[in-house]
């Protein structure tokens, strides 16, 4: 019996061990499905059982070793109540103290508490504006909350009573978006600490790309999240109306229990799905990410057959579409694939195994948002082919995988480094994919390019704020948007005219490759450009990034007179015009305070063109010519490289008026005016 048992036992153990090994290798090599569950759970279990550490898993990335310095490991077990729009969850946070000093307190973001009537977020939004709800009409159902029910520090006991709400940015005692916990025993440098938190999050009706709408939910910024130790201090800002987020890289293992009927999408890779009665539990794993978001809706239609062969391995594209937008699924996948191609080719590899694109609930405030490996688009049931709004949003949010996702700048303090740099690359990528002047719209003869759209958003608010401003210190939401997105994009496009487009492309790649999976500062970015270009660009950065001078160059006057004007006057009409010598003057003015050298093209009636260069240092300059031809036109920046000039109309002047463009516009206006008169008479008389 014994021998027989041993004969059976050893082969059995061998088979189990072998199969586990095979599973482990298969999990690393193949798509992140099913088989990964065992490995992930085993890993998590070892973390819980053994000494504290941050896992070095690579299940969710196409790399055999971690790509970031992992500071945090979140293990969350969350149950979503679809009727109440609440999440009850436990969170185990393991923190690795890499700050080089002991830490005796830890601040946590409780972002959902922003959606309370007296929060700083709402106070600011009411005054300065916001992209979502008009807060005068805010209803209770739209409120959100995030309550820590219990907080225990392993080895230090229950510290729930130690939780204090703090307001590091303002004196608003009603703001509860940051909670601070003092530890009785400081965590020494290099040590680990583990928090066990029980919390409940109540989602608002979608606000700031988080919350519910009808039976849809987007779980963004939904769990207590520790701040970032940055430049010798905790960086954990309150949630402001214009701010986004900042967090450390790490590993996420998240279990989501949702009603059986829900279709779910989330950051990272899905490692298991287990049904139990009316619910199902999905487990997700993320490596080298700094946030975790998810969504659920019973009505998503899923397209998940797309695979992009990236530089580091295959990237599975999972697209969750609204049923009424299903015909646009190909369109979404196409722009996602093209964005991946461009970013990999221009800036660097996309290392993650998945990218989930969510087409969110219509009429929700959930469209156009980025989370690691998870983005939301924005579309409508009616979307003509020549209107590229879905493409614009998808490309933009995908771009954030680089500028925010991997190059994880501080979105509270340097919003321009994620939104602005991303808007710049958006201009480049969309111009390349959809055409320079048609990248937003090419419909019924009318065109709009992304470059112009960014510039227009900037010139509205050109003299309000500098780029280098904390996101919550801008004059208004409009200024925040126009400057961080529009001005930054325009400034970087204009910088190409100074250092060259190719050099700028090299600088962007160098910046990404050097600072991916870190938290660079604005100087890191600017110095990279200077290093790559080999030029001192402080004169430009001081004005464009740190200052708020406005650029406005103008052709002040163009005039031509016969050199012997007095004799010509006497002999008027007797001489051949081609033999007449003219003295021509082209006067330029720098009307703004922004000083920058510019090129000028002077065109003569005989077709001759002369290029001039003006350093722009003085307020005006004048070019004089003596030729047998009059000046026909003068144009500053004839190659349209300078995008930050506030007024493009006065950049050129033609000696003779060309009334055709105005007549064309006039005709549109005349048509509309006549039609309104007719329509009024149709119904009223």
């Amino acid at each position, binding site marked *: 019996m014994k021998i027989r048992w041993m004969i059976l036992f050893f082969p059995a153990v061998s088979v189990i061990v072998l199969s586990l090994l095979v599973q482990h290798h298969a999990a690393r090599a193949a798509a992140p499905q099913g088989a990964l569950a065992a490995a992930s759970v085993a890993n998590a279990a070892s973390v819980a059982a053994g000494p504290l550490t941050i896992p070095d898993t690579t299940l969710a990335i196409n790399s055999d070793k971690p790509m970031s310095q992992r500071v945090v490991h979140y293990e969350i077990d969350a149950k979503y109540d679809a009727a109440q729009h609440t999440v009850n969850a436990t969170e185990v946070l393991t923190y690795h103290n890499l700050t080089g000093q002991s830490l005796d307190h830890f601040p946590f973001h409780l972002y959902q508490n922003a959606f309370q009537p007296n929060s700083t977020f709402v106070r600011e939004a009411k005054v300065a504006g916001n992209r979502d709800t008009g807060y005068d009409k805010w209803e209770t159902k739209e409120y959100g909350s995030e309550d820590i029910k219990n907080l225990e520090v392993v080895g230090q006991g229950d510290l729930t009573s130690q939780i204090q709400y703090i307001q590091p940015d303002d004196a608003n005692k009603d703001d509860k978006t940051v909670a601070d916990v003092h530890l009785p025993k400081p965590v020494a440098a290099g040590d680990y600490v583990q928090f066990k938190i029980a919390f409940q999050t109540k989602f608002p009706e979608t606000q700031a790309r988080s919350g519910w709408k009808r*039976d849809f939910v987007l779980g963004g910024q939904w769990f207590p999240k520790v701040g970032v130790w940055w430049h010798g201090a905790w960086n954990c800002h309150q949630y402001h109306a214009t701010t986004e987020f900042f967090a450390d890289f790490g590993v996420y293992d998240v279990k989501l229990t949702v009603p059986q009927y829900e279709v779910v999408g989330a950051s990272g890779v899905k490692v298991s799905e287990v049904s139990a009665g009316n619910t199902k539990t999905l487990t997700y794993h993320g490596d080298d990410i700094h946030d975790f978001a998810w969504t659920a809706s019973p009505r998503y239609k899923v397209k998940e057959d797309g695979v992009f062969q990236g530089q580091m391995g295959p990237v599975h594209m999972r697209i969750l579409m609204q049923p009424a937008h299903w015909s646009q699924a190909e369109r979404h996948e196409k722009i996602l694939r093209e964005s991946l191609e461009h970013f990999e080719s221009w800036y660097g590899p996309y290392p993650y195994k998945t990218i989930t694109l969510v087409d969110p609930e219509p009429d929700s405030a959930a469209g156009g948002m980025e989370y690691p490996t998870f983005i939301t688009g924005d579309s409508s049931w*009616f979307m003509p082919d020549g209107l590229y709004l879905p493409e614009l949003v998808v490309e933009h949010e995908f771009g954030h995988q680089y500028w925010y996702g991997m190059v994880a700048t501080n979105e509270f303090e340097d919003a321009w480094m994620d939104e602005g740099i991303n808007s710049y690359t958006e201009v480049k990528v969309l111009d390349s994919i959809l055409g320079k002047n048609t990248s937003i719209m090419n419909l019924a003869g009318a*065109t709009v390019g992304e470059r112009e759209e960014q510039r227009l958003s900037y010139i509205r608010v050109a003299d309000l704020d500098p780029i280098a401003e904390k996101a919550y210190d801008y004059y208004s939401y409009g200024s925040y948007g126009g400057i961080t997105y529009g001005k930054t994009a325009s400034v970087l496009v204009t910088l190409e005219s100074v250092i060259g487009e190719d050099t700028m492309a090299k600088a962007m790649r160098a910046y990404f490759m050097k600072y991916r999976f870190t938290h660079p500062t604005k100087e890191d970015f600017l110095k990279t450009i200077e290093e790559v270009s080999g030029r001192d660009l402080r004169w430009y950065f001081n004005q464009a990034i740190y200052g708020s001078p406005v650029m406005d160059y103008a052709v002040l006057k163009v005039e031509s007179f016969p050199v012997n004007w007095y004799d010509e006057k006497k002999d008027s009409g007797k001489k051949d015009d081609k033999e007449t010598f003219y003295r021509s003057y082209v006067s330029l003015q720098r009307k703004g305070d922004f000083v920058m050298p510019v090129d000028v093209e002077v065109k003569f009636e005989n077709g001759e063109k002369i290029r001039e260069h003006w350093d722009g240092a003085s307020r005006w300059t004048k070019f004089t010519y003596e030729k047998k031809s009059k000046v026909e036109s003068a144009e500053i920046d004839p190659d349209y490289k300078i995008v930050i000039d506030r007024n493009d*109309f006065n950049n*050129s002047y033609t000696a003779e008026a060309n009334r*055709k463009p*105005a007549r064309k*516009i006039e005709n549109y206006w005349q*048509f509309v005016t006549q039609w309104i008169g007719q329509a009024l008479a149709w119904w009223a008389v």
Partner: protein
Amino acid sequence: MSEHKGLLSSGWSMVARNKRYIFWFYVLNVALARFGAAAFSNQVHEILDHSLLSDRLVHGFDLSVLIEMIARPEFGPTSASVGAATACAALFFFATALFLPGVLQGYASAYRLPREDFFRACGRNLWRFIRLLIVAGIVMGIAAAALFGLHGVLERKAAESTNELLLPEVRFAGLAVIFLVMAALRVRFDLAQADVVLSDQPAVRKSIGTAFRHTLQNPGRLLASYVVTTIFAAAVLVGGIFVWLNFVPPASVAGAVVVSQLTLLLLLIPRFWQRGVMVTYYLQHMVAPIVVQSFTPASVVPPVISQHGPTPVAPSTPPEPQAS
């Protein structure tokens, strides 16, 4: 006027016989719009005429250039341009109210209405038309407010649905219903206008009552004719814009002017066609009961000019005594 002839074809014949009215209304429409667009025009020329950037509006249509132009401080407040255009559109509306009685009179007339008779009809019915407009405004305003209110409620309900397409479906269906109801009201007041002018009816309320009674008796016929003419108008507008966008080169301002103005000229036709339909209906049904004892082809019957002004009498039988 033969009863056997369809409303639409008879109305169309009237329009065809009196093309000059459309022409003059078109001239008025153009002239007033020209005034209305003058402020806009000056601002646009000021910014665009000497700038090379404006070329992007000629060879194609770069909307961002247009937006930037409107955003320029020297363009001035958009309210100035919009205000002037709206005022001139309103003027066209009042001019239509002023001259419409002459048009109705002309349509009812079997011969070319002399200019003095046209203007006499206009002057004689001006105050009546103003009263009609006020009543129509109140009735149609109340109806529109109620319908749009209900429409809003339905839209809000539809917006709660998880079926995204329900909202646009409700929206379009609701607008179609509102259009039909408003068109039905429009039919009644148009008929009242015809009655006021052609019966020389000083008591506007009686014309309204008569019109409402008649349209109740023939609820579908007039409405159907209005729907047909409206579809025609929509086709003209869509067709005109299609031709403008697809066949006129972007740089051809002259081509754009011709196509756009031709479209607007053609757009006037359906409304006058509706007027022709109303006059036809009036002559067929409201002047007197038609007793056909023996069929007599429609003949040119000279209008009877009453002491108070022109009153057309088409049928061979005497008109019903007018209630006073």
